């Protein structure tokens, strides 16, 4: 079965050896996205709320490039650095994901990858979605 990596000009450019997504059969696996601006690669302002909203819009752009969309996401994983961010994380998530909702696993991590800019990365999200 054919498979291929996808790098989109609409997502923040990868900072390591990974594409934005990998398509195999009728599924697409998307690399974890942080709240980086696709234009300048810098982390957006606005704490958890701003970062989560941008991370999900990066996912949406990458999914669209792959022929999928947020409403075809089957599963998400979220890693975040501060337990007090959980409500803001859920609120931003709920603004973007609608029924039928994906399954989800989230957990707290000690740190996330450093990115250009002065703010710390507070959250990242990856997903598996249906495509085609």
């Amino acid at each position, binding site marked *: 079965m054919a498979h291929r990596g996808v790098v989109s000009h609409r997502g923040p450019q990868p900072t390591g050896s990974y594409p934005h997504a990998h398509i195999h059969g009728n599924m697409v696996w998307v690399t974890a996205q942080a709240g980086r601006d696709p234009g300048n690669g810098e982390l957006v302002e606005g704490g958890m709320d701003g970062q989560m909203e941008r991370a999900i819009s990066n996912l949406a752009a990458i999914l669209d490039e792959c022929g999928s969309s947020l409403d075809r996401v*089957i599963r998400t994983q979220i890693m975040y650095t501060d337990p007090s961010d*959980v409500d803001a994380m859920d609120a931003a998530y*709920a603004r973007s994901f609608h029924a039928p909702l994906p*399954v*989800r696993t989230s*957990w*707290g*991590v000690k740190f996330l990858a450093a990115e250009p800019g002065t703010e710390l990365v507070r959250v990242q999200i990856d997903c598996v979605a249906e495509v085609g």
Partner: protein
Amino acid sequence: MSPDPTITIKEAPEPRGPYVHARQHGGLVYVTAQIGRDPKTGDFVKGGFDAEFNQAIDNVEAILRAAGSSLDRVVKAQIEFVDEGDLDAMNRIYGERFHEPLPARTSFGAAFLWKGARVQIDCVATLD
């Protein structure tokens, strides 16, 4: 309109966030990470790590049953826990609950889990 691919049941703790208990796709069922919350009260079970992990697996089992699958059809499990002192208990309980053919497994220490949970487990299982 295709049938709803999602599953959310009363026999597992009510979601406290924007997610469903399980979702079917391509002959597989994906299950949201479950923690040691009692499905009836929604509260964490008492009894520390052992009780929480057993309840979390009970919740996964109930969701799999509703989806038409079962623990012995799990392909992959993922476990996050917060205290490395719980590692032996995690392995012992997991060994009591999962049997051959065992799933592939990833487990690791998390900095924290939702509302102070000690452990959570998710999985992907087959439907046939």
